[in-house]
């Protein structure tokens, strides 16, 4: 490879003597400076490589870093290295400028061809992503159409899901866990689909329904409940960082964010196909508006997803504010829908994944060409658009007549004779104008002037790359789904939305089904649900995941049909009981030998406590007045700057970022909440009073059992009854200061009820 050798070491035309002199010059004047002043941050050995630039080989210097080539042999004036040494644009070394004679040495060295013996190949961190390998990454391959393995185990198999799962268990010689008993099943299904416990009547009805298909009937009943959209809509809201205040710097209320939330709940309840669900949120404003004004309004409302993010409204560098908002949108959309951390490529090519800064700015152009902000004022205002309403239009037209009439009267008056009348009329006109009936507003986007963005060097909006990147899709994914043409006159949002939801897209359906699986099983099949890049683990059941994704597409992206498919499988219905031998080998239950035990999230904990106390207000939609309201949790305000303490205590903490899954922590503040909070005390008392009323003639033993049925969907055992009776008498004794005996009794029972609410059995779903 003589040619490349020459190419690396310098000008081949130089005579031996000159070359030797120049090498000597390099060794004397250049190399020591590089080693002493540059290598700390710019070599393969650097603890942190700065600016993506290495200066420890000739090739690396020629290739340059994030800002472009550092050294252009023969042309010091075009070499960024010289600019930086002179502290012209960049300032290197940052601590102090090198002496003028040293800089002159570098200029001389470069003008003479930058002769450099360091002909090592590019080493270390500058190795670019291996694109061939990256394009073979499993998650970027088309979704397969796997055939469920044939299995001899006819009684357990209820669904193709079971065939995939059992196949993996049989590889180990394992058996699946028993099917859970009916009480466990209905409690699991009810929390899963509506986020509340089953009522005693619902449990009994299920027990009494001995016909086949009884569980399918439970699932259908739950899917038809308006509570279902409140539970599954909330899952989605985690992904798209829903909140009702801006957070960030200026914590302004987002008074219309709830309309977007209500849209999500309604669409989930209506089973809007998930591909449409995605298209409408990205580009509802660009779809042909339906004649029905409610439907037309819904399409606008859907795009609230892009607007509800946190923004630095008071950032005075408004260009930075704008590009930061674009970044926030890319991060949310890419992690939610693509399952990729595209936003990592804002400042440099992605360190692990085949996503380049060009890919990032191709997407950024799309969102930059979309209006999210209404203005760039000192404290800027986000976009809101009026909901179409013929009714309000008519009212406005009618009202406008009054305004016009008043204005005409005003115009007819003559100064100075009518000064007093003019004053009155003017006030009246102003007042009338204020009274003009207002449209309801939604947070929504619209198209801005389309434009392409250049790469921002190191993410800095003041340091732009030389050329604009055409708006488009991440290149590595366009092997499977061709990149759409983006018309010059459009932002490209609609094209992005259609591209994402193409049945050929390798990620969208997989990402979605992996999440749906996680929300049914506590663990996803692929363990990093919002990061499907090269660092992602292979799914525990790759074929099952692909089958589910295909099944979603075959079922016209119907989420409800996928609930049925999953929940009617034996896999879903397994008991969560652990077996010692399996547990030893597979502590994380990756093989799915049982269901997972799951802790309830903040919302179901709170809602269930209100529900069992018969205090849950089940009004649908709109804003609850405050976090104290007894509405379902999804309707409470979500203040990013001052989160409701109960939420943050139970791990609903992050409201400003895409949240791929709720953490499960166990902290004393949760215990304090369950022991001492007003809501727990009130609802325990309310439940106990209700049981006393409804079971007046029964003895304490049966009341205890009824309480267990309310909270755990099962009666109490004999031992539990005995133990509870003992507790109650001890508790009453400790309450001897309470004079009234019936009050004392109620307080003892309430304390017992609180104990049950605090128990693992209440807060975990088996």
């Amino acid at each position, binding site marked *: 490879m003589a040619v490349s050798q020459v190419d690396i070491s310098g000008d081949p035309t130089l005579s031996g003597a000159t070359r030797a002199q120049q090498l000597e010059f390099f060794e004397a004047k250049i190399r020591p400076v590089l080693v002493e002043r540059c290598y700390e941050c710019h070599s393969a050995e650097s603890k942190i490589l700065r600016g993506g630039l290495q200066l420890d080989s000739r090739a690396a210097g020629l290739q340059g870093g994030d800002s472009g080539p550092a050294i252009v042999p023969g042309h010091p004036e075009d070499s960024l290295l010289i600019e930086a040494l002179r502290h012209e644009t960049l300032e290197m070394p940052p601590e102090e400028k090198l002496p003028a004679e040293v800089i002159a040495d570098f200029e001389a060295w470069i003008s003479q061809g930058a002769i450099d013996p360091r002909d090592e190949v590019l080493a270390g961190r500058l190795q670019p992503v291996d694109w061939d390998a990256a394009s073979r990454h499993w998650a970027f391959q088309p979704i397969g159409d796997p055939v469920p393995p044939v299995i001899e185990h006819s009684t357990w198999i209820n669904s193709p899901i079971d065939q995939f799962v059992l196949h993996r268990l049989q590889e180990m010689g394992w058996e699946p866990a028993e099917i859970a008993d009916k009480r466990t099943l209905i409690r699991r299904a009810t929390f899963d689909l509506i986020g509340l416990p089953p009522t005693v009547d619902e449990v009994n009805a299920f027990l009494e329904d001995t016909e086949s298909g009884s569980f399918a009937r439970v699932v259908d009943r739950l899917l038809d409940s308006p509570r279902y959209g409140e539970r599954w809509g909330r899952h989605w809201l985690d992904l798209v960082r829903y909140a009702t205040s801006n*957070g960030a710097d200026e914590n302004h209320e987002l008074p219309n964010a709830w309309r977007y939330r209500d849209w999500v709940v309604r669409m989930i309840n209506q089973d809007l196909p998930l591909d449409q669900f995605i298209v409408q949120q990205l580009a509802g404003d660009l779809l042909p508006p339906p004649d029905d004004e409610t439907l037309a309004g819904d399409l606008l409302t859907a795009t609230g997803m892009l607007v509800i993010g946190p923004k630095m409204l008071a950032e005075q560098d408004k260009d930075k504010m704008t590009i930061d908002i674009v970044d926030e949108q890319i991060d949310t959309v890419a992690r939610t829908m693509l399952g990729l951390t595209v936003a990592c490529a804002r400042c440099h090519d992605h360190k692990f994944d085949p996503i380049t800064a060009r890919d990032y700015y191709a997407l950024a152009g799309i969102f930059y060409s979309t209006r999210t902000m209404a203005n760039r004022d000192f404290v800027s205002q986000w976009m809101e658009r009026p909901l179409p309403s013929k009714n309000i239009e008519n009212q406005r037209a009618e009202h406008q007549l009054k305004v016009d009439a008043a204005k005409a009267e005003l115009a007819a008056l003559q100064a100075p004779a009518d000064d007093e009348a003019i004053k009155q009329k003017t006030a009246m006109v102003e007042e009338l104008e204020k009274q003009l009936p207002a449209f309801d507003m939604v947070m929504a986007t619209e198209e801005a002037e389309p434009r392409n963005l250049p790469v921002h060097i190191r993410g800095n909006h003041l340091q732009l790359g030389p050329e604009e990147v055409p708006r488009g899709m991440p290149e590595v994914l366009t092997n499977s789904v061709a990149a759409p043409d983006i018309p010059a006159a459009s932002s490209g949002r609609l094209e992005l939305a259609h591209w994402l939801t193409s049945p050929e897209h390798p990620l969208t359906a997989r990402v979605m089904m992996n999440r749906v699986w996680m929300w049914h099983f506590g663990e996803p099949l692929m363990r990093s649900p919002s990061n499907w890049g090269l660092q992602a683990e292979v799914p525990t059941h790759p074929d099952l995941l692909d089958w589910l994704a295909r099944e979603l597409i075959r079922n016209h992206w119907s989420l409800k049909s996928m609930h049925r498919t999953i929940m009617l499988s034996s896999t879903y219905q397994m008991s969560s*009981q652990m077996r010692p031998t399996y547990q030893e080998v597979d502590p994380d239950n990756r093989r799915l030998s049982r269901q997972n035990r799951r802790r309830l999230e903040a919302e179901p904990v709170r809602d269930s406590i209100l529900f069992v106390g018969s205090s849950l207000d089940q009004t649908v939609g709109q804003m609850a007045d405050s976090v104290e309201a007894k509405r379902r949790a999804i309707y409470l305000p979500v203040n990013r700057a001052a989160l409701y303490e109960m939420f943050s205590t139970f791990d609903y903490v992050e409201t400003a970022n895409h949240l791929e899954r709720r953490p*499960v922590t166990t902290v004393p503040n949760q215990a304090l909440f369950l*022991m*001492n909070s007003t809501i727990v005390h009130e609802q325990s008392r309310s439940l106990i009073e209700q049981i006393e009323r409804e079971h007046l003639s029964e003895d304490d033993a049966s009341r205890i059992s009824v309480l267990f049925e309310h909270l755990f969907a099962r009666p109490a055992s004999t031992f539990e009854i005995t133990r509870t009776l003992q507790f109650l008498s001890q508790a009453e004794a*400790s309450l001897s200061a309470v004079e009234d005996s019936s009050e004392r009794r109620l307080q003892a029972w309430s304390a017992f009820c609180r104990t049950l609410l605090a128990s*693992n059995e209440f*807060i975990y779903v088996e």
Partner: protein
Amino acid sequence: MWNSSQHSKGVSRRQLLQRCGAGFGALALSDLVARTQSSAAGPDNSPHNPLSSHVGHFPARAKRVIFLFMHGGPSHVDTFDYKPQLEKLDGQPLPIEKPRIQFAQTGNLLRSPWKFRQYGECGAWVSDLFPHVGSCVDDITFIKSIHGSNEAHGGALLKINTGSDTFVRPSMGAWISYGLGTENESLPSFVTINPSLGHGGVRNFGSAFLPPIHQATRIATAREGGVTQAKIANLTHAQNSRELQMLQLEMLRELDSLRHVNRGEHATALHDESLNARIDSFELAFRMQTEAPEIFDLSQETEATRRLYGIDQEQTSNFGTQCLLARRLSESGVRFIQVSHAYWDQHSDLKKEHTRLAGEVDKPIAGLLKDLKQRGLLEDTLLMWGAEFGRTPTAQGTDGRDHNPHAFTYWMAGGGVKAGFNYGASDDFGFYAAEDKVHVHDLHATILHLLGLDHERLTYRYGGREFRLTDVEGKLVQGILA
């Protein structure tokens, strides 16, 4: 060292027997006294307690931090960064270029309305706004070359508290809690007293992607009013006597064990670790109920101590109380305590309002410093004073100054920093950091270092990569280390 890949491991048979063999009553009472004193007992290695005390990367100079945060941005050129040039050039235009982005337009240079004088053996210049702190300068390192990047309160607060004004990141206190845990298991590791709920709000003391246990426990708030209401949410309830709670906890543990016996899981040591952890958390909560009210009970302090903090005077009583509470929490093993005071944002009324605000904090701050010193706590407690930014040497109106993130002053005392020392300088006017510049990231790196943590090694894996408080920045400020 706690790291992010650590998950709860299976419970040992011994632990299991311990847990189930004795009821809560037997276990708890003997344990209660011992464990509330665990700061002396070394790290607890229980796998499920991420707050158990950890050892840092290298020996720590400071074991804990008290951060006095002056929300709004006090003027450095009117407090600790003396600029004689401002006297000379009062009313004249700034002879150097103003920054590209400014929060508001400012006019000509404005001299400080306060007289500066030299204090102590080190001869540090302090204005008449802070005579009490002035009397402590021989214990203090002033850093006069701090600079940040955001000219608005929200962004600047987030920058100081989380290192990022662009992305959602864990706060400094959360990182420190994650890195070191708590010295006292009965208390949270990170406490914030009277924080602002605007300008980034909870993000300023939140845990972002770190486990939520590392977020600050909030004590009172600006909105709820003074610290006299200091409390931890749900700490007690009138109808829950100690005795009744003991009965409940005992019952809770028994019901839970019993259930797993019935499920056939008990005997095989398969009782889910997270379930045990949950029961343990109830016991910790129970201990907190005992310990916390005692710490909040300031009546145990002598009259002399209360006077030292200015609690006996109306003007200083509120902040004095907060400072004293900070000392008590610190003494009890809380790792990071932030005390906020508002609102130093004098675009106008500089003379009147800075006088009032400094009057509220000067004596309590000096009192805290002296008290820490006389108790021998200052040696391993880092006391730090600062804000989100300083103010411009140029005037807004006739009696105001604008935000200035380009140069401002922090001071530190104790915890391994030099005493009676000055580091860095702003330019002649105090507009830009000039000598030995210390960026906010450098400040963070240095605070972590004093606590025995290497800012490049204190990482947490999230969304596919490792994160740090200092992102890809941060240089240790060697010059201030004692």
